[in-house]
């Protein structure tokens, strides 16, 4: 017994060590460097000077600072705008993917494999190229306006490109697969017998959905929402190309700090603030919805 448990533990350690080392060196160490840099003095030409400099966070959050940095509410505004945009993208991708996942799960055999292949197909082309394609679709003389005009839906071309609408459209398009796949995985696992049982026991379709289907697919919804929210929050390519860089988001301001402004510590501080915001929101989301779902399931 002891030797068996011992060898098991040994095997587990052997299996986990490479992953732990990889995550430790490629994830935690860079994160630690960023956290450290956010408290150092910016170097004149990028990089840092090794002097303690606690003012970056106050510049964003409004703590008393002395004369070194000024508090500017503009950064909070950018953070809130990014949150709102990422939230919109989550809701829209969810609205598209949730019904679609049920639809795809009804297919069988090759047809199902083919649809799943189509979902992952965009990954074969570079993100930048796909975003440029959207510029061609959305511009005034582009494909969308051409179709709408020749169909008589509109008289003059719509100005969609370089607006917030096109930023949202671009992000939704890019992030759809990330919402679809986790939802699909949990819909696949949903046992039809449970749905039938609920109906046999006299539940209305809405009750069946609310008490059986939703709680059981909730892990996929939570997973998908998180995987979509995080990149939507920090993305800077789509706002720059499709939004015409007129709407600044956190990703853009961080890029500006590291490149044009050569202020790495402030960029690092903003990145830490994003990380903190995402962690807090994730915790709230998972606890609230996770618990709500379990409670609803238990009641059923």
């Amino acid at each position, binding site marked *: 017994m002891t030797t068996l448990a011992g060898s098991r533990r040994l095997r587990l350690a052997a299996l986990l060590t490479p992953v732990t080392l990889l995550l430790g060196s490629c994830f935690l160490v860079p994160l630690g460097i960023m956290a450290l840099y956010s408290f150092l003095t910016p170097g004149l030409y990028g990089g840092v000077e090794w002097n303690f400099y606690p003012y970056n966070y106050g510049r964003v959050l409004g703590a008393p600072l002395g004369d070194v940095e000024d508090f500017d509410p503009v950064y909070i505004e950018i953070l809130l705008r990014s949150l709102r945009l990422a939230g919109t993208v989550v809701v829209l991708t969810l609205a598209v993917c949730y019904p679609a996942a049920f639809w795809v799960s009804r297919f069988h055999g090759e047809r199902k494999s083919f649809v799943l292949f189509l979902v992952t197909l965009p990954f074969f082309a570079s993100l930048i190229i796909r975003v440029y394609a959207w510029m061609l679709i959305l*511009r*005034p003389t582009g494909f969308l306006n051409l179709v709408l005009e020749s169909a008589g839906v509109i008289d003059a071309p719509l100005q969609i490109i370089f607006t917030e609408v096109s930023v949202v459209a671009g992000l939704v398009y890019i992030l759809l697969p990330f919402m679809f796949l986790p939802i699909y995985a949990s819909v696949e696992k949903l046992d039809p017998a449970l749905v039938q049982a609920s109906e046999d026991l006299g539940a209305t379709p809405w009750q069946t959905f609310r008490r059986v289907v939703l709680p059981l697919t909730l892990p996929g919804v939570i997973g998908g929402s998180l995987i979509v929210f995080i990149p939507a929050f920090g993305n800077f390519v789509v706002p720059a190309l499709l939004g*015409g860089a007129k709407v600044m988001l956190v990703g853009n301001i961080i890029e500006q700090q590291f490149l044009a402004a050569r202020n790495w510590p402030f960029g690092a501080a903003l990145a830490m603030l994003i990380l903190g915001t995402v962690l807090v929101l994730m915790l709230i989301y998972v606890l609230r919805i996770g618990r709500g779902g379990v409670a609803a399931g238990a009641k059923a």
Partner: protein
Amino acid sequence: MSIRTAFVVLCCAAATAHAEGKLALYNWGDYINPQILEKFGKEYDVKVSLDTYASNEEMLAKIQAGATGYDVVWPSVHMHDILSKLGLLEKTEPNKLPGFANIDKAALRAKSDPKGEYCVPYAWGTVGIVYNKKKIPQLKSWKDFFDYAAKNPKKVTMLDDMRETLGVGLIMNGKSVNSRNPAEIKAAQDLILKHKPNIGAFTYEVIPLVQSGDMHAAHYFVGAMMYVLEKPDTLAYVIPDEGATMYQEDICVLKSAPNKANAKKFQEFMMRPEVSVLNTIQQKNGTVNTKVPALLPANIRDNVNINPPASVRAKLQIFEDLGADLKVYDRAWTKVKTN
């Protein structure tokens, strides 16, 4: 890396498969005629590779991170000064080579390198306005540009570039684009913000949109002449009456360069008029080589937007390194982009 760059690297690698030496170039995207790399590789039996960057700061960040394996970089003049200050440049003394006589001494613009002991001036250009002639018959000034935008909102674009776009505000207010005066920079910020509702986008990716008429005019650099000369009935490029910024890049060898001898040969090679002219013909920008104009086709040599007369040149300003004062621009630009 652009498709063109990838092609160059492949073709040169193939042509010089048995090359003795190597040369690693790190340049702006699409900023050198591929024929030059091929020619250099053949002549010196060197395998030439080319990587590209999109901004001075991107290049600086990479070089500062340590030895990169790159030999030659193309900083703008103010970045040439920064690289000098940080001790990242190798003193190759191109000014002692015979070809240096061809270089226009007025092009030795870097304050840190007034004699050309480190870098060779490469090429220069202006940042003005490219516009679609079918939409706007004539456009001469920044005032015309903003007046047009007021009547046709969202049909013009400006560059997504902190100093260039705030620079337009400074120029229109008659100030230096290197102003360190917070009040002047604030006034430039307010000017751009005032026009922002009429500006379609802040972007570099605009030539296809102007060509198709989706956008009617765009703040853009003289590289637009490549497209203007191809479609002279549709496109035009103009240096605005109020003045404009100009840029110049220099060819510098890094202190950490692994192939210094070849890099030095490359600096010398680029000073040859017959090599330099290949670049000017392809890039359609300003030359710094006094022997080149005689070799240029008339449509480039006599084009006032590529080779402006002295009266126009007097109105051009070049960016200087602002050191710590850059932060005033950062804050102003963040406000422009957010409000």
